[in-house]
């Protein structure tokens, strides 16, 4: 007996439909995740709060002029030297007695900062400064902090600080997150990021 086969659906155009959709998603896809320098803005302050008195030697002033030149501690400086200068200032550890810093490896110059907890970097821009220069300066200053934090993290925990933070933010990382968080906090208290930005001058 002849077997009657049911008529087949023509699936030849399926590929065309799928291709059409594929091309649509190909075009609309953006793969890259954004990267950038994360910062935290200071909250708005009441007018009547008296700013604490900070000794001049604990302040590292970086001024970016309107023609994108750097003035660091009243001296002209190239951008490439800024990182090293900031590291030297933060790591100076010139304090004595209670203000001494036992992990600093700097020159212990009494004219420079007492310890990393006291050291403040003050960044002043002009309104005409280019954004690109500002980001470069920010980047170098963050790099100075990261360099010191990495050094201490390597000494204490045999791991880069940046790696520790990356692991902490990684959902798939298998390890003791509680302990990692404590260690990150410990490094952060050793070298706290004290970067103050004044409102731009004209």
């Amino acid at each position: 007996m002849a077997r009657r086969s049911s008529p087949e659906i023509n699936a030849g155009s399926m590929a065309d439909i799928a291709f059409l959709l594929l091309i649509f998603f190909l075009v609309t896809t953006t793969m890259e995740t954004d990267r950038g320098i994360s910062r935290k803005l200071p909250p708005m302050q009441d007018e009547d709060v008296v700013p604490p008195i900070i000794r001049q030697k604990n302040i590292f002033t970086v001024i970016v002029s309107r023609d994108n030149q750097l003035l660091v501690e009243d001296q002209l400086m190239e951008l490439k030297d800024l990182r090293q200068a900031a590291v030297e200032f933060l790591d100076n550890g010139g304090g004595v007695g209670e203000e001494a810093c036992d992990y600093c490896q700097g020159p212990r110059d009494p004219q420079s900062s007492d310890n990393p907890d006291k050291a403040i970097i003050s960044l002043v821009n002009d309104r005409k400064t280019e954004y690109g220069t500002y980001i470069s300066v920010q980047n170098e200053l963050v790099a100075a902090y990261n360099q010191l934090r990495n050094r201490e993290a390597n000494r204490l925990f045999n791991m880069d600080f940046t790696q520790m933070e990356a692991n902490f933010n990684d959902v798939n990382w298998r390890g003791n997150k509680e302990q990692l968080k404590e260690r990150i906090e410990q490094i952060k208290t050793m070298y706290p990021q004290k970067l103050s930005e004044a409102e731009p001058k004209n």
Partner: protein
Amino acid sequence: MSKFKKKKSGELPAVNTASLPDIVFMLLFFFMVATVMRQNTPLIQNTLPFADQVEKLDKKDLVMYIYAGKPLPRYQQTFGTEARIQLNDKFATVSEVQQFIYSEREAKREELIPYLTTALKVDVETNMGLVSDIKQELRKADALKINYTTRTGEVSKN
């Protein structure tokens, strides 16, 4: 004699394409899952600066974008060449930033609000005056977590 002779056609057999849709569908699903739709059409020039101390900005739904830069050449007739702020798909002034932050917050679930980050996508050539004004507005709106979006590279390229 002819019993053993195979039927032979002179042409090559056609390549079986039955699995082609499967392959295409596989690709399709990959791109469907990986797709994030573009949110804003840029109205401004937006060449980001370079930096190398960067952090990843994950969780796109928790990021508010503020663009700034010179208007694109085709908008310069109407909007001039001075750097401007772009919020969503239109030009805005500094005073509209606060309102923008509040309306973005409104759209998010309450428990996520503390994790909101503002990404500043600012053109390299913009003056810091505008950026400072934006930052000041963000402080007023209490949106303190910010991220200067950059490209990854040496700062000497800026």
